[in-house]
């Protein structure tokens, strides 16, 4: 992805929230996980990742904590909040509806 557009920014939020659903992780791990889960298709740039993480934190969907990482260094771990979980469901539903609609239009030959 290049510079995030509005649509892309919304989906990045969705991806981050989904990634954080199982457990808390730091920014590097989030980027790697998204890359992994999407089969190396989606490569999140730092330029869009960290602004998104900070924005989500300011809005209260995720909360942060400093803890020791797997390498032994201190890192900032993000975790979903309860409100964040609700938001995730809403965004997933939205995305499904949207993508279904786009699919319908695109597959109309």
């Amino acid at each position, binding site marked *: 992805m290049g510079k995030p557009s509005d649509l892309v920014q919304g989906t990045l939020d969705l991806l981050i929230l989904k990634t954080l659903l199982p457990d808390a992780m*730091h*920014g*590097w791990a989030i980027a790697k996980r998204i890359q992994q889960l999407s089969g190396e298709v989606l490569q999140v*740039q*730092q*330029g869009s990742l*960290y*602004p998104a*993480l*900070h*924005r989500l*934190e*300011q*809005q*209260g*969907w995720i*909360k942060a904590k*400093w803890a020791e*990482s797997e*390498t032994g*260094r*201190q*890192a*900032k771990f993000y975790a979903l*909040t*309860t*409100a964040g979980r609700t938001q995730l469901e809403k965004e997933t539903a939205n995305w499904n509806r949207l993508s279904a609609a786009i699919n319908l239009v695109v597959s109309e030959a």
Partner: protein
Amino acid sequence: MRWFEQLRMRILMLFSRHRAATHLNDELAFHLDRQIAENIAAGMTAEEARYAALRTFGNPALLRDESRATWSWNWLESLLQDTRYGVRALRRTPGFTLVAILVIALGIGANVALFTVVRSVLLKPLPYADPARLIRLYEVSPDGKFPFNNNAPGIYSEWKKQNQSFTDIAIYGYAGYNLSGEGGQLPENLRAATFSANFLPTLGIQPALGRNFTAVDDQPSGNPTVILSWGLWKRRFGGDPHILNQTVLLDTRPYTVVGVMPAWFSLPDPAIQLWTPIYYKEPASFMQVIDSHDFHVIGRLKPGVSPNQAVNELSIITRRIHNANLSNPFVSVGANIRPLLESLVGDLKTPLYVLLAATGCLLLIACLNTANLLVARAAARRKELAIRTAMGGTRLRLLRQHLAESLLLSLAGGALGFLFAFAALQWFITTRHDMARSEAIAIDWVVAAFSLLLVFAFASFAGFISAFSLRGEQPLTTLQESSRGSSAGHARTRLRAALLTIEVSLTVVLLIGAGLLIKSYSRLRSTDIGCLTQNVLKLDINLPPARYPKAAEVANFLETLLARVKDIPGIRAAAFISPVVPGDGYGGDSSFAIVEHPAAAQGKMQYAVHRWCGLGYFTTIGIPILRGHTFTSDQQPGHTTQVIVSQAFVHRYFSGEDPIGKHLNTLGKRTFEIIGVVGDTRVQLGAPPEPMMYFPLYAVDDVNGAALVIRSDSNITQFASPIQRIVSGMDRDLPVSQILTMDQVIGRSTLDNSFNATLLAAFAGLSLLLGAVGLFGVLSYVVAQRTSEIGIRIALGAQRTQVLKKVLVDGLRPALIGLALGLPASAATVDLIKSMLYETAPIDPAVFAMVAITLLCVAVIACMLPAWRASRLDPMQALRTE
């Protein structure tokens, strides 16, 4: 719970922003390190790994900024940042900062002070219950010359009985008492007022201590009662809380103190210190007359009644009384009203609004000056701005920073100005304590809000103009150009010259206003009052009727006093005059009829100002005796038959004939022979001379006081104490009051004229100074801009005087255009101050010419130094400094 998280984040971002910033750095560093580690694991060397990581990472500063852009309270952070930068930038140029703050403080301070005065005196409602319904009532004289005449008590009684429009109307008048000293205190003569028992209830207020007069107190058979003013209670009685029901000696008679007025109460007059019941003080017979207008009336309109209805009703009642007394030419024919507030401060409206407008002009001039300074400053920092833009500063951000600086200056100037205003108001209150409602002048929250508004308006105006001057700046060309490029500054010079032109026009308007007021005041002061004013002193002596009941005793006292005073070495002459000396007010009038002339038509008023004077008065005070002679020594109490008239009297009533030997029927059907004609005197500076009749001092039985007039060769004030000692030696309880030289008497009556003229002149002078400084600044800037051009001209053979002339003309151009605009602008607006001018036409060619010449001289002086410096340029130096 989301709101909780959000709140937590907001608090965190507000108070531990620094820690959050450090964490952000750590977070990004962590990510970078993991990327590098990954690269190394993929097989790159440490160097390559690092470069590859950084390449994918992008600009760390930009990344940091974008992350921070999502934080809350960003606006506060940039505001604080702008403030810090602004303070730093201003500290770097302390001279500019100090001058700018001072100029702003002057402009805002003057405005705030005058706004406070206007608001407190003219706009704030009176401190009484429902003040909009309070009305002052007047009578209309039969000849129509006095539509707002004082009231006759007999007519007031009828109004009170018959009216339907008022919930209540009350009558009041003026008086004076000698307060005897107790416990070593000196006796004092105090200005007092009398009012009816329903006066305070009509206003809707109660005394601060004690009670109002009751109906029982307010009758001739009542017990003597008095209400003190707050100031008198504090000053003379030490604020004693047990003052109520104690007695004080007024005119040597005991009066019981029943109340103390609130500190802010100042009706009818700020100088009043005592109030007594009117129907107790004045004889009952006097309170029934319908043709002597010595009192004043106020009333409270009933709800739902319009002022017009009330006037009509009262006029009908008055006319009925008039028609029932057609033989009496002094009974009023109608009534008139004014809202109470307007009756108190109506005269002050024009002068105060003129002064307010002047301060507005001054503020505008200060604003333009500051804008000018800021434009010059912005021009000097063009390179800095270009660098900032190149580094990524948006136009908006730079504009905000610019405005922050101008706002900082305005806030500092505003705070200082507020202090100035406070000090100025204290000075104003003490100097103009004679002004109505001066006790109401106080700074309140409206004034504070107004000052803040001024500060912001000032900041925006100055800031936007100077920001406007930088529009269209291209960073690249700015960084490339040499420091003395001339074309880049051209538009800016035009802007500065335009600002200066407006400044000069406003200065011209102020100067002309001040010039007219000064001319009017000097005309007023140089008017001949009709008598000597140098080395003449007057003192008032009032003998209480209780101790001096008979006219013979009064005469005895006064003559003894006169003899002793004349014995004092150094006193050239002394005499008595009652009630007042020339220039000290109207003093009352009496009707008369000329015996030898046909009787005046029924209903036609004939009256003249009356005075009672002792022997030697005219020679003492320097009034020339034009015909006949002064009183003979046989004019004793009970046997006075002579009268002397003034020149104006002769012109009006004896034109073409000799008045000597004719007789006047006056002072209650007595006959007096005219034995002399004296020169005219004015009752007030600026008033035309009125016809006057001078009677001997003891012509009426109830004369119990007079003003003693003394003349010496020099240093007249040294005689006040000896005379006071003589008086207290003759009667320990007798005070001497109103000790003034004739100069002071006249000065007192022209206080407001001189005050307004002085103030306006001060404003005009300040704006002239600001304009001169502005001219100097602009021309220096222009010369600095064009140093190389001038250098080339000189090198190519231009004479130094040619250069001087050219630069001078360039510098004078904005001043000349400003003058050309300002003169017609003044001509248009100067009509507004017509009511403040005495014998001066608003469009006075002499004043306009003087102002134009003054302005040109000042402008030439201001431009001379830069122009001279330009002509002295060494061409080699000029061309080398690039």
